[in-house]
């Protein structure tokens, strides 16, 4: 069990308190390829941010690779994020004034990897994702799909055990979305990386092996989707 949530609650204390997660119970095994679906505002991003230790939860327990994630110092949290988790965001979140290869190198910089070594590694990963020729380009010189692949390269470079992706195809067209999902599926298959994708597109969810539905702040139905036939449109296509 790489991820285990026990009765996790989260309330946003804004103008008026908003109880977003109302007792989430969820287990994810090592090597699973899971999508989280739900209506807008149902708390998908909130849940993913808690899984990524970007945000805190109020009550309950979150076990990550056998360790209780609670009251970590910022330094410890940073370390977990750096070594265990790779993030892929809807808006890519690349650093604009750094080139593709510099962006990919950055997590290794925070691990203290020497400059030359991290450059070589970053080039390798970009090459694997077919972006070798774009290594020296800045994000604003690349297409959405290319940017997302750079972001994935950055998420992968530390060899994390989990990839968390919040609507990774949200800003991409259907063809590029398919490519990105195929890439994630391949990573899951070949490298056994645990991947959790938040989406509200059924086509995207259909690419994953398990679909977790979240509704009214609790986990609803969990669909097994090994055959990739959950979408009404059938496997292999993402309708935008």
């Amino acid at each position: 069990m790489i991820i285990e949530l026990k009765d996790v609650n989260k309330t946003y204390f804004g103008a008026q308190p908003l109880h977003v997660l109302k007792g989430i119970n969820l287990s994810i095994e090592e090597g699973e390829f899971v999508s989280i679906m739900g209506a807008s505002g149902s708390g998908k991003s909130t849940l993913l941010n808690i899984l990524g230790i970007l945000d805190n939860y109020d009550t309950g327990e979150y076990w990550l690779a056998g360790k209780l994630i609670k009251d970590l110092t910022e330094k410890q949290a940073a370390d977990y994020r750096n070594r265990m988790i790779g993030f892929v965001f809807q808006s890519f979140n690349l650093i604009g004034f750094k080139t593709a290869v510099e962006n990919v190198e950055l997590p290794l910089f925070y691990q203290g990897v020497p400059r030359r070594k991290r450059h070589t590694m970053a080039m390798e990963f970009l090459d694997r994702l077919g972006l070798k020729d774009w290594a020296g380009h800045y994000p604003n010189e690349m297409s959405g799909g290319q940017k997302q692949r750079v972001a994935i390269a950055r998420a992968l470079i530390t060899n994390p055990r989990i990839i968390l992706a919040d609507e990774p195809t949200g800003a991409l067209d259907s063809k590029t979305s398919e490519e990105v999902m195929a890439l994630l599926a391949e990573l899951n298959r070949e490298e056994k990386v645990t991947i959790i994708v938040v989406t509200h597109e059924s086509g995207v969810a259909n690419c994953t092996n398990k679909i977790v539905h979240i509704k009214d702040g609790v986990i609803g139905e969990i669909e097994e989707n090994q055959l990739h036939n959950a979408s009404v449109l059938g496997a292999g296509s993402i309708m935008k």
Partner: protein
Amino acid sequence: MRDLFVEIYESIRRNKLRTVLTGFAVAWGIFMLIVLLGAGNGLINSFGQASGSFASNTIAVYPGRTSEPYDGLQSGRRITLQDQDMALTLGPSFAAYVDDITPTVGTSVTVVRGRKSASGYLEGNYPSRLDVEKIKLRYGRFINENDLKENRKVVVIPERLGENLLPEGRDVKTLMGERLKLNGIMYRVVGITASDLMSSDNLMFAPFTTVKKVYNKGNDIDDFTFSFHGLDTEEANEEFEKTYRAAINLRHRASPTDNGALWLENRFTQNLQMSKARRVLNIALWIIGLFTLLGGIVGVSNIMLITVKERTHEFGIRKAIGASPASITKLIIAESVAITAIFGYIGMIAGLAACEVLDKTLGNRTMDVMGEQIAVLIDPTVGVNVALEATLLLIIAGTIAGLTPALKAARVRPIEALRAE
């Protein structure tokens, strides 16, 4: 380290104008600090030169007028010092402190040489006067023991007065050995004193005994100066002056506490006060300079705050991929220190250059202040140590300027930072 420099360089490159504008404030601050300290040093040095021309532990005693009635006598009575006052000074009551005493007695004279004349004041003196007053001789010698013993009619005249007695263009040196007529009596010139900022242009010196005899002074003397030892603090000096004044005053039937009857000019306490004034001036200059610099620091701090705000999203990304708060703090502080140090250095170089210019233009140039030649600034420069202190100051300043923004950047939670745009 190299990575840090690359990051700083990138950040500065992206905000060139802003960086230069803030940097200017820092450069200006350091520039002002260095120039102020340089000018201050120049001022202090010129004070130093002025006061440095006196022996440091002497008291000059001048007669005055009584300022209160005492012992049946009216106030306003003129006091005249006499040989007995010197005897009292050297006597057992003050023997523990007083070393040496040199009296003067003088008279106004008209000096005539051929058809030219000048008026001056002839002061009868002892040889030790030369050291006590730090008189600078240009040619010849001062009064010596034999002059005194034999009541010789010899005179030491100031350079300027000599020039006035000579036809245009003749060297004062030629006056050496010549005879001058002082109120009808011939004196031989044995020495010529240098005219500088602190010397009088018409004060001539002759042997004490000669003046006393020739001008019929009897027991009376003008004033005297004695050197002393063993009084190291201002309080000790005050205490001594009080007892001393009482003793002399009583001999003249004046109130022992009458400050008008006797003027005591204590060079030792004057020097103490001078060095205190010097310290105060120095501190004041540092404070002014530091406040100017503070403006620069606030500027840098502000700019860093804006930078941090603009880069919040970026810091969110960095944190999401594993940047520790410390690494973010380091980034900001390093940038702040870099900006402060680079521009501070520019300001410092400019400041040192300005000091050099001051030195070349105003340094050692004298100014006519009420008939006296006063050097405006002497060596208005700062030493290497001040430059080093300033460098250290810059690093500290940069750190302080970066601290608040850096902590702010490090504190913001990754999720909030990521949401920021």
